[in-house]
């Protein structure tokens, strides 16, 4: 009995391993006896797999070549993509092909995919698919205009939920911006009437609108010429449009264009922006640089004084200045308004009553060093 069971084990292993990787080849070194085991395999009447065929799935084409279809009608039911969806048809998750546009069914081959069969819908009875590769696509518009003006206006003002919820906030923001704009505009008008008193009311309006637009572009990062030319272009385009709308005639257009250009050239000669975008009398770049140098010397004088709040004074001088550009102001702050001065100034030999102790990491020695500094090393003290 033992002999019998051992051999049975061997044959089981053989069938398990030998089929997959054929490790027990013909000249295998297994020398023990191998016996074929046949177990009882007499089947009962009938098979377990018998009588299991399902009903037909009703696959196949539901529309034939040239047949007319409406959107959504099924053209083909299939398992897998026996036919691929071509032009104006869609494909479902079970690969059902259906029409997306009304038209005529076409079965065709596409030279780009030589091994695929396609089904498509041609919009006309005459047209064939595929449409040539470089030809414009045939497209159906399919939308219908609303004739009733009342219904049309309702539809036009219709908002979806997201837009509806966002609207109050957007309106409020817009109102705020417009108020701000009006404020700046009136300020500009006031400043401009002081700088060039002989300007008429209309000219004043146009000039301040122009300068406001230039300011916006400058603040937005445009350079000077780009900002000015854009503002001019916008005005000229508006003039052209009012000519097109017949609000003004040709001679009026010409006159207003000329006067506008005169005004602009005058503004360029007589008005400048300071660094806070306020209007000032024209200031050339050289004049600005002399002012910057003056500011530098006043700051240096403040730094020499012994007042306790000199750091704050210097900061105020820098950031309230209308002479410095933003980058210059930052540079000034870095050079003059340093809270701690470099170590060339005010390092004391020993820690005493008058010295302030600072700590610093020494990279070479890999440790913290203690340095005593006198009060003159600190602007804030």
């Amino acid at each position, binding site marked *: 009995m033992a002999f019998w069971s051992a051999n049975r084990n061997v044959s089981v292993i053989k069938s398990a391993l030998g089929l997959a990787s054929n490790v027990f080849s013909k000249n295998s070194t297994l020398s023990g006896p191998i016996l074929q085991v046949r177990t009882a395999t007499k089947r009962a009447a009938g098979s377990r797999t018998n009588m299991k065929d399902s009903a037909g799935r009703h696959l196949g084409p539901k529309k034939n070549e040239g047949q007319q279809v409406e959107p959504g009608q099924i053209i083909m039911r299939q398992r897998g993509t026996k036919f691929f969806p071509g032009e104006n048809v869609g494909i479902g998750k079970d690969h059902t092909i259906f029409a997306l546009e009304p038209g005529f069914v076409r079965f065709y081959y596409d030279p780009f995919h030589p091994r695929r069969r396609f089904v498509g819908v041609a919009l006309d009875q005459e047209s064939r698919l595929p449409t040539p*590769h*470089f*030809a*414009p*696509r*045939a*497209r*159906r*518009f*399919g*939308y*219908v*205009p*609303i004739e009733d003006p009342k219904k*049309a*206006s309702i*539809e*036009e003002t219709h908002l979806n939920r997201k837009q509806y919820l966002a609207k109050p906030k957007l309106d409020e923001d817009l109102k705020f911006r417009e108020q701000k704009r009006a404020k700046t505009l009136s300020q500009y008008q006031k400043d401009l009437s002081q700088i060039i008193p002989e300007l008429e009311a209309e000219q004043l309006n146009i000039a301040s609108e122009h300068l406001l637009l230039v300011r*916006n*572009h400058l*603040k*937005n*990062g*445009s350079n000077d*010429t*780009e900002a000015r*030319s*854009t503002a*001019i*272009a*916008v005005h*000229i*385009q*508006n003039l*052209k*449009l009012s000519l*097109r*709308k017949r609000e003004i005639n040709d001679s009026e257009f010409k006159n207003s264009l000329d006067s506008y250009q005169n005004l602009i050239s005058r503004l360029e000669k007589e008005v400048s922006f300071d660094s806070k975008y306020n209007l000032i009398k024209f200031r050339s770049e050289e004049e600005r640089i002399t002012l910057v140098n003056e500011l530098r010397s006043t700051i240096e004088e403040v730094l020499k004084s012994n007042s306790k709040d000199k750091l704050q004074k210097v900061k105020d001088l820098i950031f309230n200045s209308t002479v410095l550009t933003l980058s210059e102001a930052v540079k000034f702050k870095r050079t003059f308004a340093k809270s701690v001065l470099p*170590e*060339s100034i005010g390092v004391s030999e020993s820690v005493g009553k008058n010295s302030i102790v600072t700590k610093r990491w*020494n*990279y*070479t020695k890999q440790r913290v060093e203690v340095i005593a500094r006198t009060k003159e090393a600190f602007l804030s003290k």
Partner: protein
Amino acid sequence: MLRSQLLKFSKRFMATATQDSKKELEEITKSWASNSKSDSFKIKYQQSRRAVLNGVGPYGPPSLRSRRAKLQYMSPLGLDEAFDSAYEILKTKSNETYKEIEELDTKISQTKNVNELEELNNLKNSKLVQAEIDNPEVRFNFTYHDKINNDSSIIDYNEPVYRELKKKHWEDYSQMLLMQRLEQLGAIPDTLPTLNPRAEILVKFLNHTTINRWIEPGKLLPTNATSYPPSFKIQEYENVDPKKQLYTVLVVNPDVPDLENDSFKTYLHWGLSNIKLSNFNENFIGPKQILENKEINEIIDYLPPVPEKNIPTQRFITWVFRQPESISINLKNRDFDIRSFVEDHGLDAIGGHIWRSEWDSSVAKVRELYGLPKGTVYHRVRK
């Protein structure tokens, strides 16, 4: 840490601590091939130039901003020595190429055959690229400066090297993006059959301060932003003569509803012809250029996108062409067949751009500004 590194390190630390050691900075003795003359082949900022050619000195790399980062930075070991010999190798190569260019110049002055001359000029162009493309200063200038709004004293596109570098940069991303958008949005083949892009076209709407930047192809823009005409930049990469070449710009919209045929028709929204770019750097066509340059012919004035409610998103495709001769026609009708127009005038499409628009609340305002009738409102549901 190695001793040499440690020494260098402590030296750098000391140098930052004391002002006097500034004198220790070495002079720049290296220089590229003697025939390499353009200023744009040099690094403008002296400290960066010294760091590139002489190695990162005791103050640390100038490209790092904070003092702490500068102190902590360590160049890889052996790079200085390797760079010196590498520079010599590249420089001798460049010198050889410049010699070949001199020979080519004499050949060019002797030949009179037009075809041969063109071939020689192209060869010279490629040699000029070859002579400078390995120059570390050129590479530095190109890599770390603005490539679109370029400063011509740093990146000078009149030099073939910079054009070649920019072309590669463009082909790496922007060109592919443009082609993808044109194809996927069906601009090709709905307007023109196809495009072989050879120039980069950039579009910007200057009037609107919130989108005052170069527009990515395919972007959906608010109608408020597009209410005034756009500005273009045409960056040529091929060796054309910018003093003679004329360009046409067409902005077309192939999605205008055509109710009669229940289909779409194409509108020409803006057309400019006879545009001349003075050189490869000054290639911006903005309001200033259009106002001042009287040679530019406006085929049709600008009509902003004013899509109607409930129709699908409209595409606005800008096509830029090289034109063989001057075009001085003016159109009144906006119905436009771009294919026949291109064929009639022998235009050669070199680049394009696309943006999209759909109905929004500012359409009514834009319509009023341009004196257009109120737009049709369509049913929300497509029949």
